[in-house]
């Protein structure tokens, strides 16, 4: 089974996101792996463990720091890693999807996985776009994939625990919401070992696509309301909350 995982390196939302002009100030943010990509890597490795095959992880290197992510992917069980050198932190989903599709085209993938979404998918997610560019079907919100011959049994989630089971002929693209198991932990020593020994295949971006969105503004949301903030030490905060709840008959 030949599985390709397309990943996205994105500004971390754990910290402040300063704006410069009409976009994120990419120079002053940390880039991290999109959290759903961890699930798609895990799903790919689980399939490899079940039926054999290879897992190739491919991503666009936006700021010259993708190597760490790729070493981590190798430590988690990927067999091969590829980076598309773009050096453009503002590359949108359309551009990245196009470059990824071009890179994936010759890989003979049976299945392509992508994270179901990323927090900066302003112009849509890369998964369905890669599918459109490669003329493969797409299914997102995926919570498990089992390969059986030239098709796969794919579970998709709706809401509240409801979902549906699909049979999908290969090749296809899946947007992974959650792997059947929490993503595995890779020991630091193993990541370090990969950093010393592994080779990262490098390709140049090929193809052109654009989101077609003119940016008018980017800013923190103008809050229509804001919580009344309870000040003080944790003890004082706790006392005030308990008092509030008591006054409302909730404690």
């Amino acid at each position: 089974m030949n599985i390709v995982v397309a990943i996205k390196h994105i500004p971390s939302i754990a910290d402040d996101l300063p704006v410069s002009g009409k976009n994120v100030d990419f120079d002053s943010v940390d880039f991290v792996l999109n959290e759903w990509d961890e699930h798609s890597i895990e799903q790919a490795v689980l399939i490899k463990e079940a039926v054999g095959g290879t897992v190739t992880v491919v991503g666009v290197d936006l700021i010259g720091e993708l190597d760490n992510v790729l070493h981590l992917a190798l430590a988690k069980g990927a067999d091969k890693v590829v980076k598309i050198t773009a050096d453009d932190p503002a590359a949108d989903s359309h551009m990245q999807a196009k470059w990824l599709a071009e890179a994936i085209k010759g890989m003979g993938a049976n299945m392509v996985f992508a994270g179901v979404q990323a927090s900066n998918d302003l112009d849509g997610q890369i998964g369905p776009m890669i599918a459109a560019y490669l003329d493969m079907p797409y299914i997102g919100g995926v919570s498990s994939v089992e390969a059986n011959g030239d098709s796969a049994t794919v579970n998709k989630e709706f809401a509240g625990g409801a979902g549906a089971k699909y049979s999908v002929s290969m090749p296809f693209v899946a947007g992974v919401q959650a792997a059947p198991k929490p993503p595995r932990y890779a020991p630091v020593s193993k990541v370090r070992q990969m950093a010393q020994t592994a080779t990262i295949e490098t390709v140049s971006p090929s193809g052109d696509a654009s989101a077609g969105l003119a940016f008018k503004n980017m800013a923190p949301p103008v809050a229509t309301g804001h919580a009344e903030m309870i000040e003080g030490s944790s003890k004082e905060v706790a006392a005030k909350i308990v008092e509030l709840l008591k006054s409302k008959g909730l404690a």
Partner: protein
Amino acid sequence: MSNDILVITEHMDGKFSDVSFEMVGKARELASALGGQAVAVVIGSGVDANVFASDSTLHIDDAALSGFNPEAYAKIVEALVKEKSPKAVLFGWTVTGMDVAAWLSAKTGAPCAAYAKDIRVDGGGFVVSCQVYGGKLMAEVAPEGDMAVIACLAGSFPVEAGQGSTAATATASPVDAGSLKVKFVEAIKPAGGDVDITAQAKLVSIGRGIGGKENVELAEELAQALGATVSASRPVVDAGWLPRTRQVGKSGLKVKPKLYLMLGISGAPEHLEGMKSAELIIAINTDKKAPIFNVAHYGATADLFEVAEAMLELL
């Protein structure tokens, strides 16, 4: 090219989701500003399609599409867009709409604006406000070109404006279901056997800030002292710290308790979808810029463990 707005509605078990009505209401407003029509598109069978306040409703009524099929929906919408050349196609940024919106954009070359919270007409085109970066930033973008694909967050527009009784026109599916590579096999029902969090008056809801399974007990203790039940954000469930039955949000359950006490939840749009109409929302978060503070009634920038332990001493 027309000035029509197509709305791709969604339904499950014979019921349309609120976002379908929300978008139809918005589409009416946009279409009338542009001199076009708001066209509701219903795909699939087993649902009464005469429920929208649209200018017209198209029902692609095919028994082969009774279960959602992303490939079929994508191809049907692609064919409709070719036929009708609309000004915009609205999808829900939902577990079904997300499968098709960006695909259609890449397939047709039309721009896509996702995470849409608001849309307005501006000089013959649109300006879309999108809630990106987990709710930390709003982007205002103007889609260029003849057609825009816009994927709307649930709960962004009023439901009522889209409710009506326009009689639907049934049409045959332009797609041969037999040729599809994606086949719907069967529905998966939610697992039962746990407390029903939608029926609880008080919820203590934990997020990734809880740090690990071993800390869930503290939340359980606090919940017990308050006569509440523990619910959670999605990462807590994905990590296996609580069962799926406890998940609040877009892909979880929608709750409306009297008290929703949040410990270490950032307030991503997908979580807000499930709880923003709770009567009293109190959020504890160490990040003073956490988006949840724009939604909660009361908040504190504090460590959840310290606050929870101190509350336990007082209860």
